């Protein structure tokens, strides 16, 4: 079914485009042309905004950039019209990439700021175009530019061109959805930080999706420039473009590749019905009136309900899980795998970690303990790249990883769990586990990743819940899902952040046994824990943090008897 999709798109698109040759009255040609235009605009917007959740209000700017690129190139500089179209796409993509390079580096409020920044770009671009020779305030006439005769009539030629653009756009939207890029974008939608830590190159993916969407909008703008043949800043950079594409995508279902196209057909027909009459104002009000109930009652859109994924069946032939990569080097167990030196981090003046030195040995289980706020989780957050360290160096397998992006650290073979599980809410348990197998250290293909995921679901005891959504799991199960996600990429070093907290005593026993089994696979484990009897049972070595400093490390029993450790935990008796 899924493999057939591109064939269906091409066939339906060809039939749609063939209408250009049947000599319809010009009225129908131009209606179909508008339909195709809005399909391109809504679908191209959706590639970033629908899939990853970064709402752009600047689609008008990129579409407008395409219009003025064609107007300038073809109108003023005599570039052939068809050649100007890819250049228009390129101009829009470059503008989008520049905006993205600023906006996608933000960490807080990134979705909201992106929305507003793109809106602002629309007005800035409009101002610049208005005040430079690109427009100059007079508008631009394109009378001198001619459209090659592709079909019997000019209106049909325009329609044919835009229909082709629509087919290409929908095909690309489908391809992104089905590809690794799409998977990464959906992970970003659900939890961007977790996606990055599991190996998704979030910055690059967002930029690529945004540039692609902008390019397609730019091409549509280029075609439309000649279609209307007189362009003005006021009409081009109007708020109606972003408003309409948002509505179309949300209405149709922004998580589905076809959703925006369906929304586009519906809204265009509606607007056409109104604007053809005497009340254009009513058309806009109608768009607004539809948008509000859609947001309130149908947040997933028309296709959101239909587009439930098929249940994944367990593959019949299951490749026996290969040896753990760390296993191969298991012989030199005890040698340092990771050397941490002078690790420091402050949060607005508060020193969370204050120059920690620590060596991790290959194949060991190290327990990281200390009172609340002593910097244990910060240490994990720094090494996994979730936060940037202020100072220090981390040598992992002989490579400096300090300052790398989190996804690169994941690729190098480090995995972590979050204290509060952060599964991707819209993906099934199986998809949650398969994702890091594709993006993380092991970087498997789609089918292999799924097989690998089944293996680790068995390991974590979650195979029966493979098709459930994370929201349907108990806390205990979500903790094991978190664990399976960390293990599936076959890391050589794993950080477990309080996997035992909140579990019942019987569940703790089970979890302790699991930690031992992970070590048997050859991985090095660092676990942060408050459940002391579990720590004493399973740890080879223990490191104690207090006020961001390492105050003791060594054999668990011996360390826990040291007076300074006792004092750190119970308060100072002699103070």
């Amino acid at each position, binding site marked *: 079914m899924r493999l057939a999709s591109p064939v269906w798109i091409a066939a339906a698109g060809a039939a749609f485009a063939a209408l250009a040759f049947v000599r319809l009255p010009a009225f129908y040609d131009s209606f179909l042309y508008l339909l195709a235009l809005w399909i391109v605009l809504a679908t191209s917007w959706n590639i970033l905004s629908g899939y990853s*959740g970064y*709402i752009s209000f600047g689609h008008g700017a990129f579409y407008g950039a395409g219009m003025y690129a064609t107007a300038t190139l073809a109108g003023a500089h005599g570039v052939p019209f068809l050649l100007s179209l890819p250049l228009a796409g390129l101009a829009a993509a470059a503008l989008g990439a520049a905006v993205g390079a*600023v*906006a996608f*580096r*933000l*960490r*807080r*409020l990134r*979705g*909201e*700021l992106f*929305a*507003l*920044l793109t*809106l*602002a*770009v*629309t*007005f*800035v671009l409009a*101002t*610049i175009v*208005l*005040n430079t020779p690109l427009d100059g305030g007079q508008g631009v006439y394109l009378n001198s530019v001619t459209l090659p005769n592709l079909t019997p009539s000019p209106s049909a030629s325009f329609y044919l061109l835009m229909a082709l653009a629509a087919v290409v756009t929908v095909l690309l939207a489908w391809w992104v959805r089905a590809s690794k890029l799409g998977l990464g974008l959906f992970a970003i939608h659900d939890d961007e930080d977790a996606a990055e830590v599991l190996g998704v190159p979030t910055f690059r993916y967002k930029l690529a999706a945004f540039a692609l969407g902008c390019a397609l909008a730019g091409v549509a703008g280029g075609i439309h420039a000649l279609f209307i043949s007189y362009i003005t800043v006021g009409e081009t950079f109007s*708020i109606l473009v972003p*408003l309409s594409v*948002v*509505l179309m995508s*949300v209405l149709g279902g922004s998580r589905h590749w076809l959703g925006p196209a369906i929304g586009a057909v519906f809204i265009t027909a509606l607007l056409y019905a109104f604007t053809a009459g005497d009340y254009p*104002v*009513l058309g*806009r*009000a109608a*768009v*607004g*009136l*539809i*948008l*509000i109930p859609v*947001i*309130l*009652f149908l*947040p997933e859109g028309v296709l959101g309900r239909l587009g439930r994924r098929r249940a994944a069946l367990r593959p019949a032939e299951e490749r026996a899980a290969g040896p753990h990569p760390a296993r191969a080097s298991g012989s030199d167990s005890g040698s340092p795998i990771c050397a941490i030196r002078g690790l420091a981090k402050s949060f607005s003046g508060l020193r969370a970690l204050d120059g920690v030195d620590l060596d991790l040995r290959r194949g060991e289980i190290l327990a990281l303990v200390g009172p609340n706020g002593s910097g244990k989780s910060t240490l994990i957050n720094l090494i996994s790249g979730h936060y940037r360290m202020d100072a220090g160096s981390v040598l992992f397998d002989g490579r400096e990883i300090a300052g790398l992006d989190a996804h690169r650290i994941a690729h190098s073979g480090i995995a972590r769990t979050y204290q509060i599980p952060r599964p991707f809410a819209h993906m099934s348990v199986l998809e949650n586990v398969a994702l890091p197998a594709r993006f993380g250290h092991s970087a498997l293909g789609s089918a292999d990743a799924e097989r690998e995921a089944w293996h680790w679901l068995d390991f974590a005891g979650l195979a029966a819940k493979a098709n459930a959504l994370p929201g349907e799991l108990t806390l205990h199960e979500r903790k094991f899902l978190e664990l399976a996600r960390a293990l599936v990429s076959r890391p050589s070093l794993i950080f477990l952040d309080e996997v035992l907290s909140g579990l019942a005593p019987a569940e703790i026993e089970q979890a302790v046994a699991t930690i031992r089994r992970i070590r048997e696979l050859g991985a090095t484990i660092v676990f942060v824990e408050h459940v002391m009897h579990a720590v004493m049972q399973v740890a080879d070595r223990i490191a104690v943090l207090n006020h961001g400093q390492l105050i003791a490390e060594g054999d668990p029993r011996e360390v826990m008897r040291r007076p300074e450790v006792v004092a750190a935990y119970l308060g100072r008796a002699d103070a």
Partner: protein
Amino acid sequence: MPSPAIIGQSLISGTFIGALYALLGLGLSLSWGMLRQINLAHFALAFLGAYLTYQLSGVGGMDPLLTLLLIAPAFFLLGVGMHWVFVRFAVGPLGSLLATFGLTVIIESVIQWIWTADFLKLESPYGSASLRVGIFYLPVAGLITLAAAAALCFGTWAVLRYTDLGRAMRAAAEDGPMAAAFGVNVNALSRLLSGFASACAGVAGVALALSYTLAPSQIYAWIGVIFAVVMIGGLGKPLGPLIAGLVIGVSEAVTMALTAPAWAPVVSFSLLILVLLARARNI
């Protein structure tokens, strides 16, 4: 190079524009920063307020400042109602952005339907009068706007900082469930805040009507610059819009005096992008 008198006069007009930015930004900043709702319809509400002022005062003959007594409470109720809907349907920040985008278009259409798309100007004693100080002119409408902006921003700041009500509001904004566990009525406070933010739009609307020509299409002209003000000022910080508004207003006015007026919009966004870049490094 323009004369010092022109530069001085543009500093003055920049201050007054900045005061209007602050007035428009305050409600937006509070509801975004403290309620996690991005109310794009704030601009449309302000224009609705401005048109109501035009109607009550220009047509009905009321004193423009007295219209506040009607507009502010009405808008307060509107804000409370909007908040109720958002809570009832569990609308998140982006959802609120989209829904209020829809509301903006509806209000714009209503305005256009009632008052047409033509430019309207309220003729009032405040709009035409100005004080002369040395070689400079201070428009009375601008002074009123500045006074209102300063009073609302400093008043909100003082309430949030020094009263129990304000402390409870900040606690509710920081961590709603936790504040509720300590006996704070988070829902009532949020409704109050949402109503207040909306009433601010009403006040801004009256100020808008005093100094500016109105047209429904103008709603969108303010969005970019006000969001820049809100973000540069810091979300949920009542003094932020005042400071950022004055900075941007004055920089724009000086830019207009030194180059061409049409280049003004670029100023705020350049500042915004600089601020965003500086903050991105911090995190």
